[in-house]
């Protein structure tokens, strides 16, 4: 029970960090990174702590963890691709943009 509660506390701290990253990052893509990675780790730790601490709901919590683990990168990837397709400007400290280079070479070939 105590181990589960400590895991849940660490997970909630990661959730708070992810939410702070959503608010503070300069760019859509940076926000997406912060929001997806930190929040996935935080929610996995949170749900794992709940599944350890309270017996009787382990299977549903496992299904929930697997579902979040599979769908969260998928939705983030689709959103990032849509934002890049919409030509939202990157922040001015960006060094390289491989997808734009790839699209430019594809257009040259055609």
């Amino acid at each position, binding site marked *: 029970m105590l181990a589960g*509660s400590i895991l849940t506390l660490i997970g909630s701290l990661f959730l708070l960090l992810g939410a702070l990253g959503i608010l503070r990052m300069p760019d859509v893509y940076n926000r997406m990174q912060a*929001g997806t990675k930190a929040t996935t780790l935080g929610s996995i730790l*949170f749900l794992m702590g709940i599944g350890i601490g309270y017996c009787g*709901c382990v299977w549903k919590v496992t299904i929930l963890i697997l*579902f979040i683990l599979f769908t969260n990168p998928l939705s983030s990837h*689709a*959103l990032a691709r*849509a934002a890049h397709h919409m030509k939202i400007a990157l922040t001015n400290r960006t060094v390289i943009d491989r997808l734009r280079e790839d699209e430019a070479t594809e257009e040259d070939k055609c």
Partner: protein
Amino acid sequence: MANLLYTIAGIIAFSALFLPLLRMIKGPTAADRAVALDVMTIISISLIALIAAMAGRAIYLDVALVYALISFLGVIAVARYIERGL
């Protein structure tokens, strides 16, 4: 002791729910708002699971599962709409 830690974790996660809300009000483009909505959904799934565990009712976890499914579909639909229209 463990119940106190669970309560503190719930309070921290609940306060984390307001920061993406600010981004959703302020955000310059539609993609920002969709990302903020995604993060808020994940935080509220965790909160629903915590409430289900503390109330001792495992059936509330089904609500969290269905909410995760619907939010995934919604984000995919918004991304497709941004990319090439409906």
